[in-house]
């Protein structure tokens, strides 16, 4: 297990933890998206750090593209939620609860 313990892995761990913390603690949806992005950047870095050769790089490019798509869709949802309800705070959107 010791072979995993290097600077890259440490940075990956830090990024993932920051992302998770952000998702758990923040109520603002924009901030949560930033959290998702940090989380996914951690995962991406993990790929780069541990994988070698063409397949890892190709996968990373795909992940980045999907990230962008996620952000685009999530932002459009947020904009819509804001135009309909005037808030971007999750606590105040809780009446959507099923």
């Amino acid at each position, binding site marked *: *297990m*010791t072979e995993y313990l290097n600077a890259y892995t440490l940075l990956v761990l830090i990024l993932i933890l920051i992302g*998770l913390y952000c*998702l*758990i*603690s*923040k*109520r603002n949806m924009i901030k*949560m998206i930033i959290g998702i992005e940090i989380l996914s950047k951690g995962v991406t870095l993990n790929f780069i750090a541990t994988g070698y050769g063409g397949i890892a790089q190709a996968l990373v490019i795909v992940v980045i593209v999907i990230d962008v798509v996620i952000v685009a869709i999530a932002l459009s949802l947020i904009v819509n939620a804001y135009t309909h309800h005037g808030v971007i705070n*999750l606590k105040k959107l*809780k009446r*959507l*609860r*099923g």
Partner: protein
Amino acid sequence: MLPYTYLLLIAIPFIGAALTPLVGHFFPRAKGWFAVACAALSAVVVVSIIPDVWNGYTPGYTYLWNDAIGLNLTFYIDALGLLLALIATIIGLLVVIYSVKYMETDEKKYNLSRYYSLVLLFIGAMVCLVLTDNLLVLYFFWEIVGLCSYALIGYYYDDPKAAKAGMKAFVTTRVGDAFLLIGIIVLYWQTKSFNIQEIILAVETGSISVSSFALPGACFILGAIGKSAQIPLHVWLPDAMEAPSPISALIHAATMVNAGIYLILRVMPIFIDVQYWLLAIGIIGGVTMLITAIQALVEIDLKRLLAYSTISQLAYLMLAASFGVTYGLFSSSFHLLVHGTFKALLFLCAGAIIHSVGSRSMMDMGGLKNKMRYTFWMTMFGAFALAGIFPFGGFWSKDLIFASALKTSHYLFFIVAAFTALLTLLYTLRMIYLVFYRKRDDEVEAHDPSIIMLVPLFILGIGALTLGFFEHTLLHFFTNSNMHVEVVEGLEYFISVGASITIMVIGFLIFRYYVHNRDKLIALSKSGITSSLYSAASNGFYFDRFYLWLIGGLLATGRTVYHKFDIGATDRFCYETVAGGTIKLGQKFRHAQTGDLNYNMVGIVIGAILVTILIFLPSIIDFLMGGV
């Protein structure tokens, strides 16, 4: 025989039935005459076969349909089938002509396309039923005629009585039909063939033992008594009189009810050696003719009276069939022809009277003799033929049955048939008296029908008068198509004629007494032991009540099973245990779904950590162990 006869036999009525609504849509006034044209063409095709059969051919044709299972459209035309096909098409034609005027008033309320379409379908199915040689095809057309009967009994669909009568007819005949199907399948299982002629050949050459034919034989009898309205499945025919009168004449007097007798006569060579088979037919016929003749004596509804009379006369055919191939088959067929003619005539006359008077009860009629002169005479022709008065058709055909009974030593059947002939004479005279002669205080408005309705009456009247003289012509047909039939001549015949004349004299004497002492007799029917007999007879000897009790019991049992098992057990398990349990479980887990994203996120993270630990558990254990 015309070219393409077999194709035309099927095509003309069935295509006509399909086209009638179309014609009715574009030319509403022409649809009746279109149906007349179709019926006439069918009649021409069937008549064109006569010379072939007369010259001793039995035309046959097989259209291979599904040979692997023996389901082929096979035609086999002999004298018996041709006779029934002729009755179906010619009486069918006359009835359709009669209907053009008779049903005219119903055009507005009930679309007549349905009526003519069903009548043509019926004629086509009946012709195919009697000309086919394949039992499965026969069963197929057997069901089609049953369907037409049901639909036409319930023709006045907004009358609950008619709708119920149609249902009753359908359900009652269904009992027989189910048995017939079982019989056909069992027979196929035993002989590996659906072709009647093949089976007959196998039985006659002795390649198949008849010892195992008891079950299919009984099933065929049950099928026949369902269709031909014999006891105990006769209850549907009197109620079927809710149909329009031409339908009663065509389906419930002249053709469809003969299908059962036809079946018996057709399969007789197969089952003739089965023990008690003929005796069972004879007993059913004998019991039926007596009971229904008594019911006809006390009936006051004109059409129901004729229906009871039909059942009674059909019982004569059954009884005659029980005398075996040599003497029974021909006397039965001959009476079938004569009865079909005069009973159709009587029903059409009754239709004209009811149409004019506006009621079916004979209590609303009376003194119609001078108001409906032509109808009166035609009814007299039909009634005399029914009562067996010289020289009308019924005299000759009944004498032949009596003589056949004596020749084959069925003396008890002879006595029953002769006594029923006396009852027949009595109820016929009573009917004539009540409708035409009885003096009334008030006047009944009535008039003869128009010429279109009278022409079929005249043709059938001439038939009722003269058909009795064509006995030997018909015999020639039968002997020429490989049937070993004979007519009885000599001593037995003279005894029968003597018996008929005696019955006639006694009948007229009793009737004279009845007319002069009618009030006394009516009083007698309301007191003492005669009153219970009277009420038994007028209640149909409680057959209906018995069936209601039986079906009521069945329904109650079914309802109990439904409540106890279906609702009590199945529903409770499915709805309450399975579905209810799932809902309750869901309610419990519902609290976990907070809708709070951060809360869910915590769950996800915990889950992810657990999965990570699980994946790395071996490595961690290794690491810790290695550390030690």
